[in-house]
């Protein structure tokens, strides 16, 4: 079965006064129909940029996709015309953003923002679009949807707005939804509401979902597969269980160790990753993580490890991937 989305050797760079930021550097991955894929990483690792690159939403200047291919349902999104990509945006691939407070236009009514998309993509009449908008709002758990159509975003709380965003994303029956940190700005109880809703709806409608997040807990709860990014590169990919129980990259390992966990005894000391993330304008020919890596060897300074499959769809980019299980046990 062909993959829904295949990203190959994607490179996105930002040309700033401080230099070229290699935000996404030779990243390849794919998404299958209906699955939920999580992209995990810390801020600035390129996870959002890689998602935005798919829909060519990187603002130029300063950002630009400089290489690679993105095949979606047989088409390379990076080469289709501006008109064609517009027929894909919101129609076949839609996005949910991090900031529900600012992602909706404050001066347009909720109804208009919902219906204009459907009118535009599905050619629905205003009446039909309104009807569907009411259904969608009800579907995402907004009470009294008819009344909401005439309201403006500021009438709604953050959680409600994110529900509207989800309704918007679902409005044209997309094949894929990209959710970029969809719950980061929300309180923990609301976060749970939203995530449950997304999970339920995507399963039900068979929509594939890419969740971009830094929260390892969310990933564990909702994702089928997990991609871990660091400094613009994919460093580990695999089933959620593999990533959490058998991490092969020292960074993944460190990440897991540095999070306090509710299910573990209190008072245990955390094991942080030392140092700071690298400056993306000054990457060299070595592994970007080596300065913070407990297991770094000479080779790490000279050669960039590429992503290697270790079996079962589990890949990792580390020169010492083979030894990592032993090293992990030893430390």
């Amino acid at each position, binding site marked *: 079965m062909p993959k829904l989305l295949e990203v190959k050797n994607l490179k996105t760079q930002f040309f700033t006064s401080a230099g070229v930021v290699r935000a996404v550097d030779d990243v390849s991955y794919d998404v299958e129909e209906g699955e939920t894929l999580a992209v995990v990483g810390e801020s600035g690792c390129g996870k959002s940029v890689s998602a935005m690159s798919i829909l060519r939403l990187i603002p130029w200047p300063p950002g630009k996709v400089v290489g690679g291919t993105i095949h979606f349902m047989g088409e390379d999104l990076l080469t289709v015309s501006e008109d064609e990509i517009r027929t894909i945006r919101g129609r076949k691939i839609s996005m949910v953003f991090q900031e529900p407070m600012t992602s909706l236009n404050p001066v347009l009514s909720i109804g208009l923002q919902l219906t204009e998309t459907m009118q535009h993509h599905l050619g629905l009449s205003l009446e039909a679009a309104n009807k569907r908008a009411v259904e969608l709002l009800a579907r995402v758990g907004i009470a009294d949807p008819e009344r909401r159509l005439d309201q403006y975003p500021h009438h709604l709380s953050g959680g409600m707005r994110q529900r509207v965003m989800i309704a918007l994303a679902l409005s044209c029956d997309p094949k894929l939804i990209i959710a970029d940190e969809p719950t980061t700005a929300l309180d923990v109880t609301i976060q749970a509401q939203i995530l*449950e809703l997304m999970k339920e709806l995507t399963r039900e409608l068979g929509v594939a979902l890419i969740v971009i997040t830094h929260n390892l807990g969310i990933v564990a709860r909702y994702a089928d597969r997990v991609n871990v990014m660091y400094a613009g590169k994919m460093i580990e990919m695999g089933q959620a269980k593999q990533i959490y129980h058998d991490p092969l990259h020292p960074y993944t390992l460190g990440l*897991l160790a*540095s999070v306090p966990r509710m299910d573990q005894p*209190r008072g245990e000391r955390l094991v942080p990753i030392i140092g700071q993330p690298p400056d993306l304008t000054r990457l060299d020919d070595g592994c970007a993580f080596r300065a*913070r890596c407990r297991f770094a060897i000479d080779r790490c300074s000279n050669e960039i490890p590429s992503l290697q499959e270790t079996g079962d769809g589990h890949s990792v980019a580390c020169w010492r991937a083979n030894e990592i299980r032993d090293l992990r046990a030893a430390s």
Partner: protein
Amino acid sequence: MTLATERQPSSEVGVQAAEPSFLEIRDLKMYFPVTEGTVHQKVVAHVKAVDGISFSIARGETLGLVGESGCGKTTVGRCILQLERSTDGQILFKGRDLTQLDQKALVPVREKIQVIFQDPYSSLNPRMKIGSMLAEPMRVHGIIKDPKQRQARVNELLSVCGLDPKFSDRYPHEMSGGQRQRVGIARALALNPEFIICDEAVSALDVSIQAQVINLLEDLRRQFNLTYLFIAHDLSVVRHISDRVAVMYLGNLVELAGGDELFDRPTHPYTRALLDAVPIPDPEVESHRAHKVLQGEVPSPMNPPSGCVFHPRCPLAVDSCRVSVPQGREISPGHWVACSQV
């Protein structure tokens, strides 16, 4: 309503009876007026950010204060710091009521109570070098008069916080978030405080950095015998660092207990919902958890619900919750909860 603290550091047990408790909050209220009018400003409503809460902190302990945004936890911290003048209630720091002190009398108190803010980007003055930022409080308070010694102390503070002394010549924007937060901590330490309020001190940091800072805070507490009020919304971090934890909802304290007690036996329905909502970074564990989602949203603090403020969202709510404000009670030693249904 005031609670005796559950755990006392051994060194202070003996004097506890004679000495008033380290910090005691009594029935603290902070109402922000909503005014209307031009020349004569008329108060038409209040935002009840903090609506009568009481607790105490013993010397050397860490009290975690959790709740969702807008629950008033940050306001509590600001009231203790006297950045806001509270509407009512007392804040007793080592027996002195801070709410009664004027700006001048507060100066020596400010040396003893310090704060670490959430945002490492906005809590440092971007126009000041790190060195002068750390030296400034010492100079102003006349703690170290000799500039050389002051520089030595700055270097020491930086080292203590895990930063190279070379950073004292740097401006904040030349540093990463984690490094800046360390500077924030160093600044808080500059006056040799006894008590530090950590207002979401690690929330804005990436996970790998967060752990570094949490470890640093723990080390410093041990090293300098500090007392923390640790305000945060991230339950797993609070659980990790706190001796006791207080849970706030809409300006009210709903539950307060020792760390293990609270997380092992959450009693208030809100605390339970909060704990349920926190995902655990382990797919195995997660797949076995029941995901009970708390419905609804937090009401406006300008017009809070009658009776128990949590009743509109509470799965246990009964009719009486609508009218009567639940009285807090101690359900086991040191475990205090404000719910009539548990």
